[in-house]
């Protein structure tokens, strides 16, 4: 096979003998990106890597390259504990309990009134 890409032709693909074994792969690492010092580290995705050091390097390229970044965290995916996907229903809540939502408090009106009053004082 001759490719339009000279790099492919140089590879001499027929002569490759290496074969990948089933289940032969690197673990995944969850990546958290931090925009600036003190800011929350926000989960942005995963990388595959054989060690935490290389996970950091890959995460920097994958997620730190095209945005402002101060730091990156990586955590082995197997070290992250979660609920079962089927337990989603535990998070559901009946609509009658709106008093439990923060939106149920009418604080915003009071704050606005307070601000307005203070502005007039100045």
């Amino acid at each position, binding site marked *: 096979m001759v490719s339009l890409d*000279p*790099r*492919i032709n*140089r*590879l001499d693909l027929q002569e490759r003998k290496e074969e990948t074994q089933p289940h032969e792969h*690197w673990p995944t690492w969850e990546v958290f990106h931090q925009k600036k010092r003190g800011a929350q580290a926000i989960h942005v995705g995963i*990388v*595959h*890597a*054989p*060690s935490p*050091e*290389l996970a950091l*390097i*890959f995460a*920097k*390229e*994958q997620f730190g*390259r095209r945005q402002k970044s101060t730091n990156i965290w990586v955590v082995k995916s197997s070290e992250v504990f979660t609920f079962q996907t089927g337990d989603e229903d535990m998070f559901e809540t009946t609509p009658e309990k709106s008093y439990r939502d923060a939106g149920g408090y009418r604080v915003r009106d009071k704050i606005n009134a307070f601000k307005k009053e203070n502005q007039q004082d100045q």
Partner: protein
Amino acid sequence: MNAIKDLILKMADDALIIGHRNSEWTGLGPTLEEDISFSSIAQDKLGHALQLYTILHEDHEEQNPDLLAFTRKAEDFRCCQYVEMPIGAYDFSLIRQFLFDHAEYNRYQMLSNSSNNRLAALSQKIKGEIKYHVLHADTWVIQLGNGTTESHDRLQKALTDSMPLALGIFEKSAFEAELIRNNIFEGEDALRERWLGSITPILQKAGLELPDISTIEPAYGGRKGQHTGHLKPLLDEMGEVLNTDPTASW
């Protein structure tokens, strides 16, 4: 040619050619993540070359960076022969990144005190990028040096085979004494000492053995325009599009 032009040109040519070589791994890298990382590092190198060619163009009456990069003949290039060698297998490319980038890192560190303001400023500007390139190389070398017997042996072989070429990085130019006298650059011998000091502890961590360099004949010639047969095909491929019509506007 003068001392400062010669220094900047060889640095620029090194960066351009290794950047181009490393970019040949794009799409073919060993894993998706490493493919992206290595390509990104290659792009950084092209950026360094652009900065250096720009200095030559602005301060030293040379052609614009595109023409310098894409239209010169092989014998006009001042890169070392190491950077022009084909990418080979990943072990060779990785060891080259390791050996070359440590030299480059130390060269820019030394230039941060240069009497040439442009070079001193550039060294400040790109120090973070090069620090990262070295971290990338070190991490891989330590990982694979301590990996399997195969990964260790392949790295060791690549290291041993590469050493004459790597030592060719430090080939002196005719202007060496002048660069040192004018506090532009401390010189290739000083650089080579610093380089040895920075690669040795990493190789120890990786369980790799540095060959006895006193017995090795360095692959010199590149700094004088004497290149291997590998450079011309690279230049032809790299400049193929521009050279179909060098005057076209893009």
